[in-house]
């Protein structure tokens, strides 16, 4: 049954949100800290475990795959509902800071990934 897969996904999602909210309260921050990230970790671990135990059949898994397939359409809808006008009307400061701060972060990606490869091979 497809709904079993969707239910497992929902359970991981809600549990992750709960952890994120709890962390927010713990650190006196009004909001959710990494709720989505925890939900993903749960699904990775739980999904793997359930698969090994054969508690979910292939059809149940398609319930989860449907939603990961809807991911790009959701992102398209999300970009179509951004406040693009405000972003462009924020003036030069917004444009200069937004572009340059982002570019520098991009330049750091190869450096850090080199560092990661170094530590990986030294292990």
């Amino acid at each position, binding site marked *: 049954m497809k709904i079993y897969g969707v239910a497992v*996904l929902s359970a*991981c*999602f809600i549990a992750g949100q709960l952890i*994120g909210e709890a962390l927010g309260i713990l*650190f006196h*921050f009004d*909001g959710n*800290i990494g709720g*989505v*990230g925890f939900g*993903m*970790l749960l*699904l*990775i*671990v739980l*999904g*793997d475990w359930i698969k090994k135990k054969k508690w979910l059949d292939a059809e149940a*898994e398609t319930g*989860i795959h449907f*939603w*990961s397939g*809807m*991911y*790009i*359409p*959701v*992102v*398209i*809808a*999300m*970009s*179509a*509902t*951004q*406040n*693009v*006008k*405000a*972003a462009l009307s*924020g*003036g030069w*400061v*917004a444009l*200069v*800071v*937004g572009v340059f*701060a*982002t*570019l*520098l*972060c*991009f330049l*750091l*990606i*190869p450096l*850090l*990934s080199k560092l*990661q490869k170094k*530590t*990986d091979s030294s292990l």
Partner: protein
Amino acid sequence: MDLIPKLFAKNELIIAFLVVGLIMFISVLVSKHLLRNRIPGAAVAITMGLILAYFGGKKGIADMPLFAGMAFLGGSMMRDFSIVSTAMGASLSEIKKTGWVGILSLFIGIAVAFFLGGSIGYFMGYTDIKSVATIGAGACTFIVGPVTGAALGASSDIIAISIAIGVIKTVVVTILTPLIAKRIGLDNPQTAMIYGGLIGTTSGVAAGLAATDPKLVPYGALTATFYTGLACMLCPSLCYFILSLFI
């Protein structure tokens, strides 16, 4: 005469499915025939979404009653739910391989955005410390900016600028990622996790990776989702304190 608008309003989510499907269809055609597959269909579709949003208002195209359902389909609940679903099939051993560099990338990403963004703001005439900090926080994400600004008591026009900075970052990341992915070696789970931690804007990271290689989405999104929370804690506290030593 108002049969059609009524029908649209009653079924707004279904209309949104139809609209996104059409956008995707046109984008794939554009990618194939006009761009010779150099820019993937998903990237074209996301850019097209941003262009459409320009013709709307605060909530982009969803400000038009006909397209109100787009706000639900593209809202945070659906976004987070579908992001979590991509984790099915991500491998734990790949994540472990990235290790502490993934966590390091979060701290470096936040520090670089905050201090570089703040410095540019300083040299462009925003010299009081609250404005510098809010502008720097905006360079993290469009959520960190207003959270930090509110915590420090910055003025509302500075907060508006910080949101604008964050949104521009998202737009730049979305469009730039698929174009330079090869050059920065963004083709494996480890680099995707570092990328997510350094860039941090979940929507930009997710959209950028979706357009580059959908298989990488879960890895980038995993680190990116910790960024906003961490930055919201660090920017008004530790980062602000360090800034106060200089200004």
